[in-house]
């Protein structure tokens, strides 16, 4: 989606990042002393979720850039840290949680990049392992044409002994990263889905083949990779389709270079259902066999989730038995019944993934 309006918080008007972005974006500029006014304007639109994709606000992140993953109660979180470089996304996936996570959702880029770098430094010298990603509140690579924040971060993480960066995307915008000296500290990650889900639910994203091709290019440039089958969406015949995705993936990607693969099924807060119904009236995804999970989110009936997970895990393990597969926000019961163990048997999910980061990214085991 094309950015048609650029709002600039007057506080950051003179920042070099702001000036740089203004040169890259060909859109009318409006300066504001009160960003809340912009939020109110977006909220007042008939389709605020679309309006928020056509406007970009440049402002300062007044809070912390680094946050722990919000997770939810009763389900196991991977313990990843979110680096909040910006919010929302120019692509338009029907199931996107960001449509209801921000009030209202508005493309926002934090231009106080220097503050972000300053905030990161102590984490690099801490004794703990940090897995840090920018793909929770936005797509990690969609900003590259606006401001090359991912490229800057790749350089910053390179050679760090106890930290890895995960860049998660549905784009193919990798060209700016290929020549960088990443030293294995950046994991390039793609969200994968069946061709049907991509075609019907992920508007404006790269196709499956394009994503896997971009991943193979990154692999040839030495980047460790990760893949996220999340959200997996159930429909008749989906097990075979997800199996096909696995086949396609491993026909192009060497499993030895995959740090991890995550699986998560479609889950949503009830208010997202209303947005999907309004914005994507042809989408059928909210009419699945959902129950209210222990965290209040709608989830597929557990036996249905388990059946789907078992099918895809067996395909992955059939081809790449050594690749680490984990679940995003599932309980011990699901882990045990699909994988045959619970994370606590191996020190917990964060520890399992930390060990993967040590192995694939060359971190210091400490």
């Amino acid at each position, binding site marked *: 989606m094309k950015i048609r309006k650029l709002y600039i918080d007057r506080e950051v008007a003179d920042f070099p990042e702001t000036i740089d972005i203004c040169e890259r974006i060909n859109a009318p500029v409006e300066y504001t002393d009160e960003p809340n006014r912009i939020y109110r304007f977006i909220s007042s639109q008939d389709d605020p979720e679309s309006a928020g994709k056509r406007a970009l606000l440049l402002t300062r992140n007044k809070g912390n850039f680094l946050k722990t993953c919000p997770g939810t109660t009763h389900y196991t979180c991977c313990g990843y840290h979110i680096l909040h470089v910006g919010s929302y996304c120019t692509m338009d996936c029907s199931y996107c949680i960001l449509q209801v996570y921000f009030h209202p959702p508005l493309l926002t880029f934090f231009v106080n990049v220097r503050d972000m770098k300053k905030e990161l430094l102590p984490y690099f010298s801490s004794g703990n392992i940090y897995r840090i990603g920018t793909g929770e509140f936005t797509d990690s690579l969609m900003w590259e044409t606006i401001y090359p924040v991912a490229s800057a971060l790749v350089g910053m993480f390179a050679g760090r002994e106890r930290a890895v960066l995960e860049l998660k995307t549905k784009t193919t915008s990798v060209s700016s990263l290929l020549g960088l000296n990443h030293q294995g500290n950046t994991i390039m990650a793609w969200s994968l889905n069946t061709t049907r889900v991509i075609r019907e639910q992920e508007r404006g994203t790269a196709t499956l083949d394009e994503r896997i091709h971009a991943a193979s290019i990154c692999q040839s440039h030495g980047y460790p990779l990760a893949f996220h089958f999340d959200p997996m969406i159930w429909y008749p015949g989906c097990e075979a389709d997800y199996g096909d995705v696995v086949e396609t993936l491993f026909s192009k990607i060497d499993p030895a270079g995959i740090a991890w693969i995550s699986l998560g099924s479609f889950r949503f807060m009830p208010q997202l259902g209303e947005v999907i119904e309004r914005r994507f009236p042809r989408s059928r995804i909210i*009419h699945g066999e959902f129950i209210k999970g222990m965290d209040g989110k709608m989830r597929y009936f557990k036996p249905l989730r388990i059946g789907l997970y078992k099918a895809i895990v067996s395909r992955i393990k059939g081809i790449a038995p050594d690749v680490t597969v984990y679940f995003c926000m599932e309980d011990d019961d699901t882990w045990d019944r699909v994988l045959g163990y619970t994370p606590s048997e191996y020190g917990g999910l964060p520890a399992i993934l930390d060990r993967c980061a040590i192995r694939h990214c060359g971190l210091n085991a400490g």
Partner: protein
Amino acid sequence: MTDTSEISLSPDVIDMDDDRYRISGAFGSSGAGIGALVESIRAIGVINFPILEKKPGGYRIVCGFKRIQACRILGIKVLRCRIADPSWREMDCLKRAVSDNAMARHLSTLEQARAAVKLRLACGSDADLPELAKPLGVEISADLVEKYERLCRLPEDIQQLVDDGGISMKVALEMEKLDGSSAAAAAMLFKRLRPTVNHQQELLSGLKAIAAVSDISIVQLLSSPPLTDIIEKNGVDRKTKIRMLRDDIRRLRYPYMTRFYDRFYDHLRSVDLPGGVSIAAPKDFESPVFTLTVDFSNTEELRRKADQLKQLGGRSELESLLKRDIEDT
């Protein structure tokens, strides 16, 4: 503010179709529903004169739609009415129209909706609306007026069904997302079977989802088996039909889940639990925790059942049930 002046005029110069200030529900030209008022006027005449507003070529009614209709039914040739001062603005007339109705009786949902929507339009400010409406006898919140707006845009038969208590406003508003014929079909079903509000919501959301997934309309869904067979079944009372509809809609909406539960209960029966002992599945099977209930009335019975439970713990059928092996069958 200048008050009204009284005049006598022919009912023929009053535009009965001009609804600008109408709050009360429609009543047929036969006067159905205003019989008591007709009889009262026949006996003692009109006590409170209707208020009219002058307009090009005649008059529009501000207050007194029913009184004027009753007079027409009685064939009264000359009516005594009060005429709004020409200085009155639309809002002045509207306030009187709302107050005249709200102070005389409890307004129905639809009447409240009409009052709120008309006041909002004339007021032009949502923020001032609750304060404006309160002294007129109408309690409105910003959230409610939004819903009233939507209600007034629905087809008239659905509005009427809400007014008659046949369906809740919430269910009616859900119907606005449906195509006209589907909304009418669902409304007709509810009018016929009169399910509770909760059951209306359950049935409607089930019908919507099944229709969407099957790529057919609700009309098609309701007019094909198995649902039409239930609706049209002779000799079955409406409560039974509602239960049968709910069961079938649940099966169509959640085919995997219902099959799973069926298998679970079949399996549970094969466990052959001792009398007074029951096992409940985890809620929605989301948590892995089952619940065991043991009825007993004395320590001897408790001991006996404890022994039976001990034996039960070793049964492979129970082991298989708790492992939910039924998933793979």
